[in-house]
């Protein structure tokens, strides 16, 4: 019995306080075993965080006095230790995956230390590129959704730094579009090759939703940019096609895989795009545009919510909703 059920019954009955408390204690409140787990894991997390922070601060204090080989040795040594533990230690898979995630982070730390010691003049793009490339092997072998998320962040950071720091003008003009395609590609990869990522359905679900959201955000940004850049008809055409293709793909994927999050993302994309179109068309009459949006947005929103609720209800009745 859940708390909600207890509250509903209590609202419409003469159930006494003592009996309600008994029901809450037996059905809702945590048992001693759960308290024990909570206290145990909280103290481990807090203790480990404080201890590790102390170690990091200790090294930070003494950093300038360490020889350069010492600095590199410590970081490289920790990296090797993490990998050896992940491969050979007789621990649970979850812990080994956590070790690989830490190792991927330490790759970045190693490159940062290297860059600090040997001032090679490399820019941030080079640093993130190296970090991304040298993490690929562990990302693919670990098959951890968290590691794939870290990889996705690194990939996007590397790409956008490339666009800002290195890329030539023609490529820079389509930077957002290519970024959108990059994230859309990751989404398609998760959709068509799910086993590459992780065995956990829920983890795959939130990972694909995150890439879909990133792609949708960039598609909307491209659309708005194309809309307001009146000199470039080609840019607008490409932006419209990109937004249309990504939106349609998410909708079809959402309906076929029964993922309401994708349907919602498409609805949000549509809302943002149409508001932008109305504002653009009425740019010389701002109040008219605002009034049109005020009439359209609530109506559009309510129709979208109604559609999503209906779809959700249908899937719930079929008993097969995914996310």
């Amino acid at each position, binding site marked *: 019995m859940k*708390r*909600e*059920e207890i*509250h*509903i*019954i*209590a*609202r*419409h*009955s*003469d159930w006494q*306080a*003592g*009996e*309600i*408390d008994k029901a*809450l204690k037996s059905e*809702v*409140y*945590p048992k*001693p075993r759960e*308290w*024990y787990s*909570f206290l*145990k894991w909280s*103290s*481990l997390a*807090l*203790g*480990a*965080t*404080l*201890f590790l*922070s*102390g170690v*990091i*601060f*200790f090294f*930070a*204090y003494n950093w300038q006095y360490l020889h350069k080989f010492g600095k590199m040795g410590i970081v490289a040594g920790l990296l090797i230790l993490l990998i050896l533990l992940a491969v050979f230690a007789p621990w649970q898979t979850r812990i080994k995956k956590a070790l690989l995630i830490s190792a991927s982070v330490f790759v970045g730390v190693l490159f940062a230390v290297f860059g600090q010691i040997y001032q090679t003049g490399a820019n941030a793009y080079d640093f993130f590129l190296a970090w991304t490339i040298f993490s690929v092997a562990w990302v693919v072998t670990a098959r951890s959704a968290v590691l794939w998320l870290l990889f996705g962040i690194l990939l996007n950071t590397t790409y956008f730094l490339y666009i800002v720091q290195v890329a030539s003008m023609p490529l820079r003009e389509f930077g957002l579009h290519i970024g959108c395609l990059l994230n859309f590609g990751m989404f398609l990869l998760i959709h068509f090759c799910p086993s590459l990522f992780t065995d956990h359905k829920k983890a795959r679900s939130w990972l694909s939703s995150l890439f879909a959201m990133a792609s949708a955000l960039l598609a909307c940004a491209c659309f708005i940019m194309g809309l307001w850049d009146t000199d470039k008809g080609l840019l607008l055409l490409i932006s419209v096609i990109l937004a249309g293709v990504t939106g349609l793909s998410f909708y079809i994927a959402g309906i076929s895989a029964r993922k*309401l*999050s994708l349907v*919602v993302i498409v609805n*949000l994309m549509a*809302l943002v795009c149409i508001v932008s179109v109305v504002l653009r068309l009425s740019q010389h009459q701002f*109040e008219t545009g*605002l009034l049109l949006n*005020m009439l359209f*947005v*609530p109506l559009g*929103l*309510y129709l*979208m*919510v*109604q559609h*999503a*609720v209906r779809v*959700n209800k249908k899937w719930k009745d079929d008993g097969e*909703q995914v*996310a």
Partner: protein
Amino acid sequence: MENKLPDWLINSDIRFEEKAILDEYAANERFVGNRALRIFIVIGTFLASTLAFSTVLAMGFYDSPAAMMIIGLAAIGFGLRIHRQRISDVAETFSLTLIFMGFACIPMALPDWNKFIDLNCLILMTLAAGCFIFSRRQLLSFLSVISFLSLFGLWITSKGEPLLLPGFSLVMLCLMVTLSLQEGKWISSYRKFSIHYLPVTLALTIALIAVHYLFTVTTAPVLTENQPVKLLYFSIPNIVFCLYVLHSFSREIGIVNVKQKSLLLGVIAVILLLTLYTPTISISLCLAVLNFRNRYYTGLIVSAISLVIAIGLYYYDMHFTLLTKSILLMTSGAVILGGFLFIHQSGKAHE
């Protein structure tokens, strides 16, 4: 929830209204939606109410306080009316849009805030209280309580009295502790308002954390310059309540032995006394324990994040060298890891 009454209820001596219970089960089934859908509704509602408010401003109504007041009150009234009917998620979105827009319009209709802050706060608090009383869903209930508490906090801050803020924090903490420890008594005494139980506890959690971060942290915003604050007025009640809460839950935790209970309370008291001038730690710890015990994970996550930030700020504000801080961190980390081993061994011994 199944759409039938549980067998234990049918076979008990409790008098109940069958139709009302089944209607509420059905309504909950209709409204319990997907998380993505709920996020969409919130974003969409915010967007729609922002547009609605912008349109009102663009039409020039902001020049007329009377017009803004009429629009605001009408929007809130109409929104509450639709909300009370509980037709569907779609209607709920529409009602929230109107209520948000109404609340955005009304402050623009009020007189100068510097001169009439008492009156303005009273008007807005009355509206928030009205929304709370008439609300039937958790989101509106939560927003009305948090608005009420924010406005009350604003009013207290404007007075500049040093004891009012700690007093406000103490009242909220008392309310939070009694709500958590006597849930059965509260929902049996105020049956119709039991729907507000979780939103009120979340609002109190957030309000308590906000008050402590705004008025007791050395790096807090400008408000702390105008509001003389004695940190001990916050810390001491927090510590007392923290120990009281742990004492109340000791049986549920599985500690029945007086010696073990005294040891636990002693250790917690020492830790909290060491952080006497950082009341954010004691309040976050107290709220985390209360929310975990009530199995309210939203509140637990908020208080856990607050606890981590509070501990970080505690060490950051220490007037020691980096070397001394690192040794202190390692020592306290090692002590807590020792505590973990002790709990782990005790658990094994019980098995």
